Structures are given as C-alpha cells and as structure tokens.
C-alpha cells in the first residue's frame, strides 16, 4: 500500500477549509492551529481522514480559563479555550487545535461541539472539562459530572473559583479556627 508523504497541516487546512483557521502559533517546536468554533467539526474530521495528515490519536483535551484576577482577559479573543492535542502515529508528529469560546451574553455556559464521533477517547476528557470548567460539549452522550460529586455547585478549575483552603493555624488564631472546625465525637 502506498503511503502518501506527510503534508503541512497549516497549508492543508487553510487551503481545504477557508475561514476555519483563525491563526497559527508556533512555540518551542509545537504547532497550534487556532480554529473557529463553528468550523471545529469539519477541521477535526479533515485532519483525521486526509491522506498525508492522518491524526488518528487524541491524546488530551485541556480547557483553559483566561480570566485575570485583576479583571479582564488580557489580549485573548475569549475567556475560555479548549485545546485538543492530537498525534499522527503514521507520520509521528503532534498538533494542537485550539478553540476560543466565550460565555453567552445572558451568563449561560460556553458551548463547543463534541468530537466524540471522531475520536471516542474524547468522551470522558470532554466530561472532565465540562465538569471542572463549565463548558458544555454539545453531542457528548453523557452530560453528568465526572470528578466532583453530582450535587456540587460551581466549576472548580475556573480562575474565579476560590481554592477553598482552610486558614493556616498559628498560635494566635488557633482557638478561633478550632471553634468552627467540625470534629466527630462518636
């Protein structure tokens, strides 16, 4: 069987799907394709199925929150981003796809189409991102919480969610803290 030589993903995607690519970032030997949310499913099927690209393995889905505690989101296009780290085992290379999404104007959660039909590995990875970051993945067969208890309020990995730590006990405040700390007696 003849294996087609590897082609450059940036040129291939921008030629075949015009308007899908927002920008490209190259840092430390890694290539990131920033993709528009509306075109995500087309890009994802394209990179998996096209000869010369064949990105067949989904390694990781990471969601990032660009909220700054001092206010604003810096110079990023949107508050949340979802990164898809994919490998092509045939051509032995990696790629990152990034989509920026924002919350709805009415405060509803950001929505990203789900890629489980393309890479079934994304099932739990998306569930974890939706549990911890509050991003809704439309089309994921299971929308329940994964890591937190089912009745948990809030999304812990967001930057405006507090760490929730217990105040460190020093000798000057230990009695105050011990008054409020629950202890089981029986």
């Amino acid at each position, binding site marked *: 069987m003849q294996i087609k030589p590897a082609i450059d993903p940036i040129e291939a995607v921008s030629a075949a799907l015009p308007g899908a690519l927002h920008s490209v970032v190259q840092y430390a030997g890694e290539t990131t394709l920033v993709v528009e949310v509306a075109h995500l499913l087309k890009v994802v099927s394209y990179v998996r199925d096209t000869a010369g690209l064949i990105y067949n393995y989904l390694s990781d889905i990471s969601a990032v929150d660009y909220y700054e505690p001092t206010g604003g989101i810096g110079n990023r296009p949107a508050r949340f981003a979802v990164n898809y780290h994919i490998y092509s085992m045939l051509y032995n290379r990696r790629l990152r796809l990034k989509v920026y999404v924002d919350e709805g104007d009415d405060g509803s959660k950001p929505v990203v189409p789900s890629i489980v039909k393309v890479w079934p590995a994304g099932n739990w990875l998306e569930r974890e991102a939706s549990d911890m970051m509050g991003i809704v993945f439309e089309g994921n067969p299971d929308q329940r919480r994964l890591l*937190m*208890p089912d009745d948990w309020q809030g999304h*812990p990995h967001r930057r405006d*969610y*507090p*760490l*929730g*730590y*217990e105040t*460190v006990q020093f000798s000057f405040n230990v009695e105050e803290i011990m008054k409020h*700390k*629950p*202890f*089981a*007696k*029986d």
Partner: protein
Amino acid sequence: MGVTQKLGDLGVVTTTLETAINWARTGATWPLLFGLACCAIEYMSTQGGRYDLARFGMELNRASPRQADLMIVAGRVTRKMAPVVRNLYDQMANPKWVIAMGDCASCGGVYNNYAVVQGVDEIIPVDVYVAGCPPRPEQLMHGILTLQEKIMGEKIKDWA
C-alpha cells in the same frame, strides 16, 4: 502475684478481667481492607515480608466492615468519599478503633483545597494519628503499638 506467691508455680496467672480483655483485644485486631491512596501502598509494604504486620495479628484484612475491628484510614479523604468513610465506620461493630495514617488523613496534608477533607477526624473519631507522607512502615508500626498501649489502658466502666 497473688496465688502463685503463696502456693508456688501452678502454671496459672492471675490478673484483672480488664487487663485480660484488653490483652485479648490487642492480640489480633483485624484491620479493615481500606486503602485510599499512596499510604495504602506503604500499608501493603508493611504487610509484606520485610516489615511484617502478621506479628501483630493483622495479616488478615477483612473486606467487610462488620468483621473488622480497626480502620486504618490510609490516604486522602475527599469530599466525595467522606460519606462512604462515615458509612463504613458506622457499620463496624464495637469495639472499634481508627488510626489516621499519613498527613492527609490526620490534617489534610499537602492539600489545603476544596476537594480534601482537612483531617478525617472531621468525620470519624480518631484514636491514633500517624504522621508522614507516606509514613514509613516503622512509623506505622509505632502507631499500632501506641494504639495497643491505648487499648491496654481502657477501663471496663467506660463501655460496659
């Protein structure tokens, strides 16, 4: 002591009922097979060949809480797991003891955040705390010996 002083060595020992009961309880406290995280691996090492828990009568881990005497909470207790721990503790029959093994079970350890219960004594009463992250097998055995001393010091009037 007592009778043997007067009549010589009859092959009999006299003691109080309290000491006898406490001695019997320390002889073979069956632990609950309950390992949560990294401390469970050190617990398994303690049961291995080099540091042997069988000398305390603890080589037999009971999976069912109804049959266990001792709950060694080995590892971090998260908020999702906390009701389960309480449930297991409630199912254990008296007399029961708890060793909080490791820093996470004693005080929350390295993790001071939303997900970890800051010390399992927020949920269940603890008898002995063993510090360490994870505690060396020798430290755990010291904790078990401390628990045995505590059991030997118990009084019947407290529970009968």
